[in-house]
């Protein structure tokens, strides 16, 4: 089962990430303990030269992890035909107990890596390495999660047995089941719509306030980060509660993965890609704000924050527009006038 192109690519990406982190961890410790920008010592100059190398390496492997989420989901969906009982990615992820933890870990890595990359980006724009200690300390905090994600993913792929009869999405997202997904699925459409459009609207409004203010209003930045996380949760709940129903034109099919299938024109990707991108950008706006007042970053953080806010606003607007288009085109009547 391991010899599937997508699985090999995902395992290679994870292995690269683990290798890069293993190589970077001693360097990160060295930076935290010995960095002294005022010194011209050989050790300090070596650290300065190497930080550029490690920063580039980490940017590459973490960016790879961002792309890996998409491939992981695509692969789960593609492999669903190999397992008895699987109708979509849910069945593949349910083949063993590591499937959904691996997906959740990948999503967590996606958002945390995006925040780290944003911090690294502003640091690399400054002339005096103002965040070098902080970013490597954060990397050390991120390392256990990245290792856990890689390990969970490996366990999941190693445990993929074709003789296992798995369960389909119908059982996971059925109303009345004692799971978070089932609770979100059973959310009535009208309040779910208010929540969906309200949270996306709030995130867009905060992004606009932050962007038009030149990226300088810190309250709007933190608000945007919070609103982005809320909008992400509300959008997923909305997809479970009503968007999926409109796409499938079926009042009881709540699966958020079947919309990724070719039978539905891969519509799910149109929803998820802007949603994930916008949420990551919104969270990154919040991640860089604590450093906005550092002397070397005063001119850098607002500009970058503004660009991230624009990405977040456009991404959330696109998510709302695509969901609306899906509802508009559907023949399902879910709400009576």
């Amino acid at each position: 089962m391991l010899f599937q192109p997508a699985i090999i690519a995902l395992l290679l990406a994870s292995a690269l990430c683990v290798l890069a982190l293993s190589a970077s961890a001693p360097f990160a410790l060295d930076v935290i303990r010995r960095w002294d920008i005022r010194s011209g010592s050989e050790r300090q100059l070596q650290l300065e030269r190497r930080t550029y190398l490690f920063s580039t390496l980490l940017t590459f492997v973490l960016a790879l992890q961002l792309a890996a989420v998409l491939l992981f989901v695509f692969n789960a969906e593609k492999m669903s035909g190999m397992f008895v009982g699987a109708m979509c990615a849910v069945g593949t992820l349910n083949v063993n107990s590591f499937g959904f933890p691996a997906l959740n870990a990948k999503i967590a890595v996606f958002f945390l890596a995006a925040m780290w990359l944003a911090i690294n980006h502003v640091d690399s724009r400054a002339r005096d390495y103002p965040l070098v200690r902080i970013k490597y300390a954060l990397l050390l905090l991120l390392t256990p999660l990245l290792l856990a994600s890689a390990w969970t993913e490996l366990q999941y792929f190693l445990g993929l047995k074709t003789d296992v009869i798995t369960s389909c999405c119908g059982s996971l997202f059925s109303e009345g089941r004692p799971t978070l997904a089932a609770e979100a699925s059973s959310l009535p459409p009208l309040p779910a719509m208010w929540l969906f459009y309200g949270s996306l609207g709030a995130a867009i409004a905060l992004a606009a306030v932050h962007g038009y203010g030149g990226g300088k209003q810190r309250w709007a930045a933190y608000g945007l980060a919070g609103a982005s996380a809320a909008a992400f949760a509300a959008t997923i709940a909305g997809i479970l509660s009503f968007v999926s129903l409109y796409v499938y034109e079926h009042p009881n099919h709540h699966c958020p993965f079947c919309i990724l299938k070719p039978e539905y024109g891969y519509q799910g990707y149109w929803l998820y890609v802007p949603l994930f991108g916008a949420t990551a950008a919104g969270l990154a706006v919040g991640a860089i704000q604590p450093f906005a007042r550092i002397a070397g970053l005063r001119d850098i953080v607002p500009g970058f924050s503004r660009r991230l806010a624009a990405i977040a606003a456009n991404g959330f607007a696109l998510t709302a527009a695509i969901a609306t288009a899906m509802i508009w085109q559907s023949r399902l009547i879910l709400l009576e006038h």
Partner: protein
Amino acid sequence: MIELSGIRKAFNQGRHNEYWALDGIDLSIEANKVTALRGPSGSGKTTLLTIVGCLARPTEGRVRLEGEDISGLPERFLTEIRRKRFGFIFQQFNLIKGLSALDNIILPAYPTGRPRRELLDRAEELLAGLKLGHRRNAKVEWLSGGEQQRVAICRALINDPELVIADEPTANLDTHLAGEFMGILESLAGQGRTILLTSHDPLVVESDVVQRVIDMRDGKLICHE
């Protein structure tokens, strides 16, 4: 203008052929003056020049340009500093064959985004100033050594740098051309530019144009005049 403190530079560090080209250089280079580094081959003149010009990084020590530490800057900032603040004249000129004198001169200004017309006007002005206007469209391989050097000088000046760095600028020139070069140097100094050059040519280091000579041997400064 430029301060060097505790500069050391090793090549092949940690290997059997480790070599320290510079060993503890503390030096201050003043603005608007012509300074020459003099010393025998292997004394570390060119290595020091490349460190001052941000072409190489020291193994130890700091370089400060008008108070800002430039030895630790990431590469993207060094590129900007090299492009805008330094003009380089290399010993072998390093002109690009196949391109005309004009194209060679405006090449370092392309990344600045200035309009091509403006660059061509400035290049013409520089060529005319060095009496080479009639050779503007000649390919550089067709030019004589002296002409090539004047093209290299124009190229060094295209971005109007404050500081001009020249490595053994008269090494490939006869006495007459070397004398012409000193005349050009004098006019550059007259424009208020800081000039740092290496040479062991008496015609250069004993010239009145050079205001300060720094002697080097075995990677160390011998004395300051």
